[in-house]
């Protein structure tokens, strides 16, 4: 009886092992599926370039609107997950902790990232491991409408901006507008005071005084801006010529040009009290490799990665959709040199802070949003609001584990 049982168990084990053995069809090994959520111009530039750069690898781009949620569901299932995906760097920590990402340095030549802007490489690095091959980055810019704000009127400091706002706000017009009560935009002010939303170890608001000072100073500006903080209101005010200046992303530029706004782009103003410029968050868009593809399709993945480190694709992307390439060599190209928008982002890259990529940042967007809403829109005291936000941040971070 025991022998029969042992034989049956051995047979079951053998059958399961045979079923589990992963064999990969050679044709499949040369086919890579890439999920993305990018605009058509970016993907068309990538497809067109890769067709000639890696002709022997079949690369299929699939647009996913809720890419991160889909990856959370199927990230470790090779039959449903993609081989790679293109996304902003701020989810690197979440996906690395989930264990679905492969380090990309092993898939690249030793000197492949030599000429990359340091900020872009730092952005995709989580716990000393690089999980993202940077392609391009976006950051907020100071934009103004030359019809109302002349080049010599562009404020160099934040006090100058406040004075301009006081002079030019009223009767349905605004000197300056921004999404003042959202974390992504207000981070620039917090950084300008030397503070941060969260540090690399996951500690929320490591410099409480800097955050409080920034909130207090920023309130003077909020008083001269509309009560709404959402994207549509702020953009419409600028695009309809009801606001002279704004802080916005490069994605606003096509709409501004379509609205025939004589658009000027300037450096971020410097905070008078600290001497530091408003330093916005930057988002680095790049290629992430899933573990299964790195292990079973490594040759095809390596070819793709090598092709994407060539400056040619960075230049193509910059020309096609105004992206700021991660590879510094791209900026030597004459056409890129003459692109005011790309050059402005290149300059901002020197001061921009990559969005934190640790998983804890996921909850901080809500915490900071609440803090800003309490202070800017509900008129609550800064100290009490800050204490409540800190408490909520600690609770939520604790609840993540």
């Amino acid at each position, binding site marked *: 009886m025991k022998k029969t049982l042992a034989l049956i168990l051995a047979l079951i084990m053998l059958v399961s092992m045979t079923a589990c053995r992963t064999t990969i069809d050679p044709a499949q090994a040369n086919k890579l599926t890439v999920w993305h959520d990018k605009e058509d111009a970016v993907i068309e530039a990538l497809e067109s370039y890769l067709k000639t750069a890696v002709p022997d690898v079949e690369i299929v781009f699939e647009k996913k609107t809720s890419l991160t949620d889909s990856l959370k569901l199927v990230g470790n299932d090779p039959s449903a997950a993609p081989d790679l995906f293109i996304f902003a760097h701020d989810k690197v920590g979440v996906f690395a902790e989930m264990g679905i990402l492969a380090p990309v340095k092993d898939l690249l030549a030793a000197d492949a990232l030599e000429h990359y802007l340091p900020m872009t490489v730092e952005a995709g690095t989580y716990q000393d491991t690089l999980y993202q091959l940077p392609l391009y980055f976006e950051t907020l810019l100071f934009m103004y409408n030359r019809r109302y704000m002349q080049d010599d009127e562009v404020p160099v400091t934040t006090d100058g901006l406040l004075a301009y706002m006081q002079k030019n706000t009223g009767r349905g017009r605004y000197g300056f507008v921004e999404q003042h009560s959202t974390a992504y935009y207000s981070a620039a002010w917090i950084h300008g005071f030397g503070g941060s939303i969260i540090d690399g170890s996951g500690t929320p608001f490591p410099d409480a005084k800097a955050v409080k000072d920034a909130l207090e100073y920023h309130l003077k500006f909020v008083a001269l801006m509309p009560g*709404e903080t959402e994207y549509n209101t702020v953009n419409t005010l600028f695009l309809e010529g009801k606001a002279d200046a704004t802080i916005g992303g490069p994605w606003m530029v096509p709409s501004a040009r379509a609205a025939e706004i004589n658009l000027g782009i300037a450096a971020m103003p410097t905070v008078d009290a600290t001497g530091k410029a408003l330093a916005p968050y930057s988002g680095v868009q790049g290629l992430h490799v899933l573990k299964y593809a790195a292990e079973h399709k490594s040759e095809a993945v390596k070819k793709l990665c090598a092709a994407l480190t060539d400056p040619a694709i960075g230049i193509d992307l910059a020309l096609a959709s105004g992206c700021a390439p991660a590879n510094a060599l791209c900026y030597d190209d004459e056409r890129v040199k003459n692109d005011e928008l790309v050059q402005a982002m290149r300059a901002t890259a020197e001061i921009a802070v990559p969005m934190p990529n640790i*998983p804890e940042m996921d909850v901080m967007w809500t915490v900071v949003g*609440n803090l800003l*809403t309490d202070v800017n*829109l509900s008129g609550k005291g800064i100290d009490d609001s800050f204490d409540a936000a800190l408490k909520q941040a600690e609770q939520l971070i604790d609840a993540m584990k």
Partner: protein
Amino acid sequence: MKNRKKDTLLSYLWSTPSLILIALMVVFPILYTGYISLTNMNVYHWFDFTIVGMENYIRALFVFDSGFLSALIATVIWTAVNMVLQLIIAFVLVTLLNVQKLKLRKLYKTLLMFPWAMPGYVSILLWKTGMFNTQFGLLNQWMEKLGQDAVRWLSSDVSAFICCTVVNLWLALPFMIMIMDGAMQSIDRSYYESALLDGASWLDRTRYITVPAITPIIAPAVIITVFTTFKQFDVVYLLTQQAGAKTGSGFHTILTYAYENAFITNNYGYSSAISIIIFILLLVFSARYQMREERDR
């Protein structure tokens, strides 16, 4: 006896496909959520989660702090106010729709169903931008015409509550109107004729004929609406709490509160425990309603 057994078996057999569907769509998600609530499934243990027993439930109880209690009270008030207003407004509109010799009745009915034809998400955002927006909203354009200052309609708790109620009524009224209209049309006209002969006023006819006659028909719709209103998320979240577009209002229902204090943590075990607790809470309310219904019968 044998035939009866056979009939019972056959009825179960015919119901099997529907039962399987219900099991897959309703029962399985609840059971799976219950299972996940007993694990440590989170960002750090996404695929290698293990059973941790009641740990998540113990932690979840900490979410039910004073903030949760305020949200619970606000949710009960929100449900009561919405239900009372829905019933009154629907009743008045349906009564007007059933006035004899009313012209263009079908057109009015179609117009009243219109909010139902639009996706809720779109309706809510249209209300937010088109009506309540400080800069471009219709309400503030009227305020401006009246020489008044612009109002931030969604910034305080009370005004946000009123605005959310208005939008919720806009979304929910078509269902209630449809059910109530059907119920009212099913009343035998001879009752009213007799009442008129007896000299009954409109109020008497409403009190002694219309209301008692429609109550049992609309009762299931009222119960369904009570629960959809109680677990309302979209209206409150999209109007006042949406990430990147918060308005300054502190009005929360239990679901928006739980979302902000648990679901964003990516801790599925913990969030599932909170979902199960809210589910049990709703189940208790539901059971109480059912028991009262049974008793009244």
